[in-house]
């Protein structure tokens, strides 16, 4: 007959723990597709590198390339701009690090480490302050001026004055041929 039947079933024995654990594992396994679907999709990843032909870019000219939804500045520097950038002692820079994704993190912000081929300066065109896009050939250092809060960069894209904490980042890139680069 039915008497109170609470003691035995509520005892936590191995089977119940294993069942609950399996439920937890199943819930976690189901959660992963729900989370992973928000990561960049295959069609976005297929665009994760772009190739760019440098030949049409004249000396003194700058072209903006879209890479992963961000503007990348490809600047063909004049000898004067290169000389100006090389003349600056690294110790005097607000940010002494190269911020070059092709080099180790500790690389110094020399012009050589900002632009491996001196005439080609490749930068992610996003101000390191709050994400605006700096204007070309403006400001006191011949480089860039951010219109949002007045950060000024030199001809190697290094921060010289203003609130931005870091130099403009150099994206990963490689020369496929003397006139063709792959960004990303």
């Amino acid at each position: 007959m039915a008497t109170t039947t609470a003691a035995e079933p509520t005892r936590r024995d191995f089977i119940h723990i294993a069942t609950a654990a399996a439920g937890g594992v199943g819930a976690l396994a189901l959660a992963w597709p729900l989370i992973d679907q928000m990561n960049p999709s295959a069609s976005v990843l297929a665009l994760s590198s772009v190739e760019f032909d440098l030949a049409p870019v004249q000396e003194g000219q700058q072209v903006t390339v879209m890479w992963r939804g961000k503007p990348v500045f490809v600047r063909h520097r004049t000898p004067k701009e290169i000389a100006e950038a090389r003349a600056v002692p690294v110790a005097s820079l607000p940010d002494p690090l190269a911020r070059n994704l092709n080099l180790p993190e500790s690389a110094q912000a020399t012009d050589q480490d900002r632009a491996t081929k001196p005439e080609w300066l490749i930068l992610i065109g996003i101000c390191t302050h709050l994400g605006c896009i700096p204007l070309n050939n403006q400001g006191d250092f011949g480089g860039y001026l951010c219109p949002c809060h007045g950060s000024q960069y030199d001809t190697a894209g290094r921060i010289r004055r203003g609130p931005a904490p870091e130099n403009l980042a150099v994206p990963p890139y490689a020369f496929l041929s003397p006139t063709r680069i792959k960004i990303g």
Partner: protein
Amino acid sequence: MAGHSTYVPKTGFTRWLDARLPILRFANDTMTTFPTPRNLNFWYSFGGILTFMLGIQIVTGIVLAMHYVPSADKAFDSVESIMRDVNYGWLLRYMHSNGASFFFLAVYLHIFRGLYYGSYKAPREILWIIGVLIYVLMIATAFLGYTLPWGQMSFWAATVITNLFSSIDQILPHAGTAITEWLWGGFAVGDPTLNRFFSLHYLLPFVIAGLVVLHIWALHVPGNNNPLGIDVKGPQDTVPFHPYYTAKDLFYLLLFVILYAVVVFYLPNALVEPDNYVPANPLVTPPEIVPEWYLLPFYAMLRSIPQKLIGVIVLFGALITLVFVPWLDTSRVRSMRFRPLAKQFFWALVVDCVLLGYLGAHRPDAVFPGTSIPMLPFARLGTAYYYAYFWLVLPLLGLIETPKPLPATIATSVTGTGVEQVNAPAE
């Protein structure tokens, strides 16, 4: 809720919380100690299964909506991009599209369970009517969702179903056309239709979720019915919901999920018409327009009637009929275990609905394969029986049928000792 609360807060925090928001008391009383008849069988596990499926549909639907584009130009491509490019997109989409089928499979078993054990009878009429409302909203949601991939079946199903409303023209000239154009946002199914269907497809599941809360509330006032259809007489008839029914429901839920997983992983397109992988083309109607399997019985009813307006009335009447079932059944005995005649009519209804489903997949002028027997008379007979079961059989049978003797209590029936011969139910 039924009975007194047995919740006793144990810690300082839970006592503090209980005085301000007794949410733990509520959870304890409704999901843990809730006294549940001890004789519920397999057929009573579909409430839990349906809650699980509603959750699956809402969760997978929300993430699919992050990638879906509700535009006539891009809808089909965006679904294909979900299938190809989005991480696990194929899994989420197949779970969602087949989830609808399994949601309906579960709801049909749940409804027939209710019909068999008389779960709609007093004092559970409101519980039943809320259930019918949930079912109607499920049909609407599924129909809206079926249009979203914007394949040929999507487009023409949307066209055919919205055109049902134009039959109102036969009573109120122009009103039906006006309503149809209002539904479409144009003069045919198009971009505005797809956009509003997407919006409503996203909204309705949350309305369903709200109704489910009311459904469970209405269940917890009188408590569960049970296969014997007799009332709970005391504590010896019940067990606490947890762990008894949580464990039992979990096991049956997993059996159901295994079946669901087999379809999702190995037969994901078995329930889909190939035509829905052809992008919508407003200039070409596929040779055969059929709804998803779970709506086929209603489609058979619609197509068996040659007159447009009457066909539509018969279609919607079949759903509206369900609302009146608690009062159409005049028997004083709930469970058909004790109703030898009604049981036979019930199984005939099950067969009838399956037959209507089969006929609904065929043109009205079709014949049974390998024979020259036309299907149309069977579709009409099936429709007639569906109505007759609810409007004639249930009311009359309660008056003329002699039920078998009922056991005195659930406990005596379960333990098999001393079944008392009681002819009338306890109330």
